[in-house]
């Protein structure tokens, strides 16, 4: 099987890699590029732990082929903080203790960021429906939802 050469933009930086034709973007991120923030929970698009954006659109990177990233703009959890400064969503997740094992947390943050970029003032119902594709088996979701609402409020005030 011959590998495919891919040029893409990852968290604002140009990146090139070789991947197998049937290799997922998630596997490329984790195993070839060393970006292990995106997690594999289910590998079938059900859990959202591998959430990234492709050209601004929220997707599961386990359901994207690495080869599909050619000339796209990919954003992952690693691009959310600005240097040492956490994104408000990251800070509020910590403040609300909205994680336990942490496997789902990167996906929640990437997904919630995509929501707040479209809708800076979501209702709780809108937050819950938007995040329905992100599964957490520890927290029961309430703290996550409160953290997102709190971050949204702070970001509106900023």
């Amino acid at each position, binding site marked *: *099987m011959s590998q*495919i050469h891919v040029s893409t933009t990852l968290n604002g930086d140009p990146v090139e890699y070789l991947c197998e*034709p*049937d290799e*997922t973007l998630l596997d490329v991120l984790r195993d070839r590029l060393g970006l292990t923030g995106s997690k594999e929970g289910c*590998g*079938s*698009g*059900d859990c*959202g732990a591998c*959430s990234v954006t*492709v050209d601004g*659109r*929220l*997707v*599961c990177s*386990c*359901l*994207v*082929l690495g*080869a*599909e990233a*050619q000339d796209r703009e990919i954003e992952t959890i690693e691009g959310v903080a600005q240097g040492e400064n956490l994104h408000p969503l990251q800070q509020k997740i910590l403040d609300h203790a909205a994680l336990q094992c942490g496997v789902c947390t990167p996906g929640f943050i990437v*997904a919630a960021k*995509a*929501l707040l970029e479209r809708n800076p003032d979501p209702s709780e119902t809108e937050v819950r*429906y*938007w*995040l*329905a*594709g*992100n599964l957490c088996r520890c927290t029961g979701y309430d703290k996550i939802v409160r953290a997102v609402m709190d971050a949204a409020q702070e970001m509106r005030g900023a």
Partner: protein
Amino acid sequence: MQYEAPQTLDAAVALLADARGAARVLAGGTDLLVQLRSGAIEPDLVVDIKRIDELKKITAEDGGYRIGAAVSGAELGEHEGVRALWPGVVEATELIGSTQVQGRATMAGNLCNASPAADSVPAMVAADATARIVGPDGVRDTSVRDVATGPGQTSLGRGEIVVSIFLPARPARSGDAYLRFIPRTEMDIAVVGAAVSVSLDDEGTCVAARVSLGAVAARVLLVDEGARVLIGTKLDDDALQALAAAASAACSPINDKRGTIEFRTDVAGVLARRAAQTAFERAKG
């Protein structure tokens, strides 16, 4: 496996027609990659159609809309024109999966995956939508009803691609709606789905109707008797009862862990009735 992302339709058709082994079209990939990763399919060739510009577009045509096969559910949902003309089709498509799945999944993919429980298909059937298919022998248009022939099976020939779905124009005072039953509030597969599309005259009497059911037979059903009992009525109680009876009578579902034959048959009537009520409300404006 070979991966190709051609920029023209001709190149895509040629790749598929000339493929030596099993070939698959990749649109949103939300079904294909799951099948690929689970080992359910082992294609020799995957042709990604998302680099073909004309397949990424929603275009106004003859008072209706042509939805390219690579248009995602999220893109469809953001299109005010389609939302206004065919709200039932948009709401059905938006029920597929999560926000993440919506970022990739397409109506054409939902159609070609050929699940009897596909959410967008009953709404497309009620809308009398047409699938445009391009292949080695040229272009043909066919009713969306004729694309899936059974669970996981389609009528597509070798090298053929569904390139767009056409949602036709409709008279003023028309409305459509789709409802499904699932045991959760989101992120699930329809146990039963029901779509109704109606057109009313100036007095509010139904002059045209189409009723479609999903997940209650091997294929999505068009229930002619359901349409017949709506036409000529203002959706009074008798019409609603007759519609529910017609919908239930049309069902030939399976028993499985998500629902029994009896449950699916009963719920099909309930959902058809409720979808008709919403479609009538939308038609009245």
